[in-house]
């Protein structure tokens, strides 16, 4: 199922996808030039999922992304400067440099941050949904996880619980065909993760994850179902990561031919062509949009690079381990409260 975007929506979707791609390319370059520490998991090729989800959710829905989190984070509105800064480890990062590439909590954008323990964020998203439901909110919790993650028991427990407790959770599987080097076909006992919906009496569906309009439409449909029934839904997007799993991955576990076939289904190219065919875009407009996005992201990266040495001190770091003050309870952070819309 695919609903045609209005021109405004189409440009928005394209812009989000380009920003996600542009961010990842910058990161790739920064790692190649050894400017960044640690590792990173790029989501190049999965941008339709980022844009479709961000546009399909309400801004007050809470997401729990995965280790491969930049795209969702930027799509949701987090400032790329804060994201680059986080990856430089600086004080100006969204988590002050404590988190890094895999941990980009941004409460202002209802992003609870990823778990880097594959699938462990899923029950956390269910807990968020529980809190949302109890607060009387119409917002939902979104548990994002990969095909690899689907083999973890935490997901089974979380899905069973979400059904028996009737919680407003969207279980969203980004099936990019591989968990690290393991092909889904070898790791999964079912053809598709959404085949597991019936195991939890849960509505489920699969969507072409490289078609941004289709992703958007399925998210909308799933969210409507969740909001109106307060029941969970399992949605799976089939996509592909064009890049390696993390930095320095020679991709020995897949063929160049397979990669080529998926490159032809690059979500940005597909959607660009579609917009052009519909008369929503022409090449010049695309180039200028892309240039603008690339310039914005490059500027954010450069600014973050300049501030890269602005580290937090060890002394200050200690103050984040436990809550400040002691004795009586403080209320939940004002920021979270403000988001419990």
């Amino acid at each position: 199922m695919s609903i045609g975007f209005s021109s405004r929506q189409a440009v928005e979707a394209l812009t989000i996808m380009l920003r996600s791609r542009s961010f990842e390319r910058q990161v790739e370059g920064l790692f190649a030039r050894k400017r960044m520490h640690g590792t990173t998991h790029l989501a190049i090729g999965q941008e339709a999922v980022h844009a479709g989800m961000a546009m399909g959710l309400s801004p007050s829905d809470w997401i729990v992304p995965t280790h491969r989190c930049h795209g969702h984070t930027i799509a949701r509105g987090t400032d790329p400067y804060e994201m680059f800064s986080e990856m430089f480890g600086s004080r100006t990062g969204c988590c002050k440099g404590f988190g890094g590439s895999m941990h980009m909590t941004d409460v202002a954008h209802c992003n609870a941050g990823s778990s880097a323990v594959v699938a462990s964020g899923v029950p956390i998203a269910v807990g968020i949904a529980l809190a949302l439901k109890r607060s009387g909110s119409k917002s939902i919790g979104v548990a994002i996880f990969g095909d690899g993650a689907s083999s973890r028991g935490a997901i089974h427990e979380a899905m069973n619980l979400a059904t028996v407790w009737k919680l407003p959770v969207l279980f969203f599987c980004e099936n990019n065909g591989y968990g690290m080097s393991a092909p889904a076909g070898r790791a999964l006992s079912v053809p598709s993760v959404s085949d597991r919906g019936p195991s939890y009496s849960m509505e489920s569906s699969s969507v072409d994850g490289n078609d941004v309009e289709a992703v958007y439409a399925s998210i909308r449909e799933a969210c409507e179902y969740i909001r109106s029934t307060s029941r969970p839904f399992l949605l799976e997007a089939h996509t592909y990561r064009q890049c390696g799993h993390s930095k320095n991955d020679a991709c020995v576990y897949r063929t160049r031919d397979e990669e080529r076939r998926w490159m032809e289904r690059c979500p940005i190219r597909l959607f660009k062509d579609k917009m052009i065919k519909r008369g929503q875009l022409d090449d010049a407009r695309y180039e200028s949009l892309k240039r603008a996005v690339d310039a914005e992201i490059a500027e954010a990266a450069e600014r973050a690079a300049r501030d890269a040495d602005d580290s937090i001190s060890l002394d200050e770091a200690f103050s984040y381990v436990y809550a400040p003050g002691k004795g009586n309870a403080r209320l939940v952070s004002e920021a979270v409260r403000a988001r419990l819309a």
Partner: protein
Amino acid sequence: MKDVVTYREAIRAALAEELRRDPNVVLIGEDIGKYGGCFKVTQGLWDEFGADRILETPVSEEGFSGVAVGAAMMGMRPVVEIMYGDFLTLVSDQLVNHAAKTRFMSAGQLGCPLVYRIPTGSGTGHGAQHTQSLEAMFSNIPGLKIVAPSSPRDAKALLKASIRDDDPVLFFEHKMLYSALGPVGDESDVAEIGKADIKHVGGDVTVISYSRAVETCLEASDMLAVEGVGVDVVDLCSLRPLDVPTILASVRKTGRALVVHDAPAFGGFGGEVIASIVGDPETFRALKAPVRRLCGKELPVPFNAELERAIVPSAEEIVSAVTSMVAG
């Protein structure tokens, strides 16, 4: 409330008072509703609070401990019952990798105010997988707090403090203490986490302990008093943070320290206590004897009742250890 209540009733009272006080407090666990919990700690609460505040779960420790983390991030204050402490192994990912690190990794954007109530310890004949004392597994994890009360009063006041605390707290309840009697404070009695309590005063040896073993130490201290040996019994109450000043003050006075716990000695929490004593220059200089441990024996908890008793320190063993330290 009666003047003297059981440890079980004290915990139940703390839960009831906090449930009444703060609508964000909920209980999460298996069979904690009408059934009243495996150890009957939550018995009766269902009638007052019902399904809205008492969330009964399937057998999904890993799942519901993660649910508690997510709910706590949003400002709920879940109090999770882990039916047997041995099942901490099933929730350790959420505890160690998530609850303990959420505040830090988010640079304070999110907190994780939750309590895990953990029935612990041997003596019940439940076999090796239901009787462990696993507190040492979590004492090396920054971000967690650990509490292990030995009396009804402490249990109530510390549980209330734990529920009001803005960070994740592991609350170890000893199964063999559930029927122990003692006075409790009123509704306003909220303890401070991280304060030890000197439960017996004497000048010759400092005996440091926590949880059920404190009872054994107190028994021993009475026996020793008869023999003219004076023992300070320091009940740690909290393991993390640890009340080092109280420990040091007592050891500087006595010059002799013995650490007692039910968990096996090797790799147990006693090592931390000893390191904090002998690392302090002034206390080190005051020491008159080797600092000793008397702890659980190095084997899985056997089912056989005699062996099960034999693997934890007895009052007689404490008496003889203390006596030899004073003599030595």
